[in-house]
């Protein structure tokens, strides 16, 4: 009943990070074995000249999950994501991917891991300026030794997936920032990796393009269902995209949770400050605030039985569904009475076929236009048209006010 973006924690674990540390500098080992390691980043830098980038980080990501790592610059998030494919080697800890400890991989195993299991998208795109878009996209397969014909075929497919058809033979410099990052995403998709690592992929783009790319990424994820680990410094982006969010500060993860948990119950002052100006309208979803109606009407019911039900629950409307709970329409008390007066025998004459509906993952903000026009509650239906619950117009605003109070109170 309670629908939210929380990942299915019973799902198969794909990436598991345990007690991971990274210290840049020559005294890394020494620091790890002394109590200095608990001191602040600045203190460590002053005392030892070394930089504490990631400290004692543990988390796990399930298959198909969209996991966001969020933090300000210097929080260690970019270092952390690089450690996941050993672009940066860790000082201590373990990283298991599908059960195998990648820190124990030989150079050859590591290359094979990078060629097949992970695909990475970079903040500054990291495209090859001397190669065409198609060659850039095909690069992962070239490294694997796939034949030209085959890799161009796959690359072409990826180019079309990200909407760059017609740009195959241009060089990256001819493309806008947003388009270049599409190339970056296509390059990562071409190798069909299990895990997609994205390091602030949209930070360099202007806000409009950024939003568009986020929407497309959500759409894409629906299609490809990858495990995505996504780094960002933008809270709204994290809330919008993540199934779960890990918030990093000073190299540590201070909270991990679903977007709504992070907003409604921030783990400490740091997170609270962070989420202070996050509008609940941008976080809470239709699925999160919907309720179950006291009664539903079924298509085989007669008008009189329906009238009885409405009187019973003291409402002037009810949603009508088919045998397998597909939403058919909205039955109102007035219509129902008219039908009965005219001796109508079927409910089919009494319902309005296209009541306002929404899907469960729509955020409240996007619900406003629908709400403004609706005379009755909004029905929440899943992608197959199955009825999941209803939202009273008044409850949209109640939820927003409560959401605000939840973190203003403390």
């Amino acid at each position: 009943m309670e629908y939210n973006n929380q990942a299915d924690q019973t799902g198969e674990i794909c990436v598991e990070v345990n007690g991971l540390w990274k210290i840049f500098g020559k005294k890394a080992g020494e620091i790890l074995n002394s109590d200095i390691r608990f001191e602040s980043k600045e203190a460590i830098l002053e005392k030892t000249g070394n930089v504490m980038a990631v400290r004692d980080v543990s988390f796990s990501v399930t298959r198909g999950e969209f996991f966001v790592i969020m933090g300000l610059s210097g929080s260690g998030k970019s270092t952390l994501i690089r450690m996941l494919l050993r672009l940066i080697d860790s000082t201590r800890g373990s990283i298991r991917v599908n059960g195998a400890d990648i820190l124990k991989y030989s150079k050859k195993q590591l290359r094979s891991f990078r060629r097949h299991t992970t695909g990475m998208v970079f903040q500054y795109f990291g495209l090859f300026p001397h190669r065409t878009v198609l060659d850039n996209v095909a690069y992962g397969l070239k490294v694997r030794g796939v034949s030209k014909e085959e890799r161009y075929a796959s690359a072409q497919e990826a180019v079309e997936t990200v909407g760059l058809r017609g740009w195959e033979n241009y060089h990256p410099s001819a493309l806008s920032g947003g388009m270049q990052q599409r190339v970056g995403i296509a390059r990562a998709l071409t190798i069909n990796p299990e895990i997609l690592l994205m390091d602030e992929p949209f930070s360099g783009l202007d806000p409009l393009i950024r939003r568009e790319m986020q929407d497309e990424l959500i759409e894409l994820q629906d299609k490809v269902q990858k495990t995505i680990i996504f780094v960002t410094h933008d809270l709204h982006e994290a809330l919008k995209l993540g199934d779960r969010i890990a918030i990093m500060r000073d190299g540590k993860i201070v909270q991990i949770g679903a977007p709504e948990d992070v907003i409604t119950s921030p783990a400490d002052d740091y997170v609270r400050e962070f989420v202070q100006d996050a509008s609940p309208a941008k976080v809470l979803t239709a699925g999160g605030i919907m309720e179950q109606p006291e009664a539903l009407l079924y298509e085989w019911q007669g008008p009189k039985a329906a009238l009885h039900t409405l009187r019973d629950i003291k409402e002037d409307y009810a949603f009508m569904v088919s045998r397998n709970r597909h939403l058919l329409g909205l039955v109102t008390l007035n219509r129902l009475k008219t039908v009965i007066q005219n001796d109508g025998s079927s409910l089919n004459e009494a319902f309005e076929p296209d009541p306002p509906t929404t899907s469960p993952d729509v955020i409240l903000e996007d619900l406003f236009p629908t709400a403004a026009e609706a005379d009755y509650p909004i029905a929440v239906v899943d992608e197959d048209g199955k009825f999941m619950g209803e939202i009273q117009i008044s409850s949209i605003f109640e939820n927003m006010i409560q959401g605000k109070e939840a973190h203003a109170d403390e």
Partner: protein
Amino acid sequence: MSEFPRFLNIPLADWIDSFMDWVLISFSDVFDAIGHVFLMMLLNIERFFLWVPWWLIIAFVGILAWRVMHKWTMGVVMAGLLVLIGSFGYWKMAMMTLALTTSAVVVSLAVGIPIGIFMAKSDLAETIIRPILDAMQTMPSFVYLIPALMLFGLGKVPALFATLIYAVPPVIRLTNVGIRQVSKDTIEAARAFGASPRQILFDVQMPLAVPSIMVGINQTTMMALAMVVIASMIGARGLGLEVLLAINRIEVGRGFEAGLCIVFLAIIIDRITNALATQQQKNLES
């Protein structure tokens, strides 16, 4: 009068002399073999340049200049300079000089690019090689003539060897610089996709270093050409020898003519290789 104390004297010259003696005795076979290879290459290139009809070379240079500089007037100018060399009566000499220069450049690239790559890959190598390159470029070029003479005797081979030592530093330096300036982000991306160091070198670093390497080739060629006159002192024939003879006999006109021919060759080679380098840079940017 204050004199520098004797006990601080370092007999470097003596050491070098005995080192050279030792090298000569121990490795004479090696140097003979190297000398033979150099000679064969040089002779073949020279034969080729003298075999190709003069008008074909002029036409080739004219068209090449036009294509790479995108201006037909430049093609005409470059071809015109070659015609002038011919009309001064120095065609054959110019071809010999060109052959020596080409050989020196070919060997310079064969030796210099791998050294440049090595230097880019290792910071230690860079710290060691850099001062050596500085020394090679600042040392008066006449100094190279002596060991070249000792190792290979008189003739074309020692001339080639001396030219090589003088001309190789730019291509090493610019290969190193070209590879090192490739953006870290680009290399990181290649690594992230599982590229091996070899794949990174050939797929990413070398192609992106090409414009820089082209500048190195241009400079190396210019230096090789400049060294040709000096190399004639140990037996290289060609324009350099003409200049040398003119100096010995104080024939101003002859010296000027031959000198002018060298200048023309330099202009032609410089403009064409320079245009190629710019074109490479543009290819990367577009």
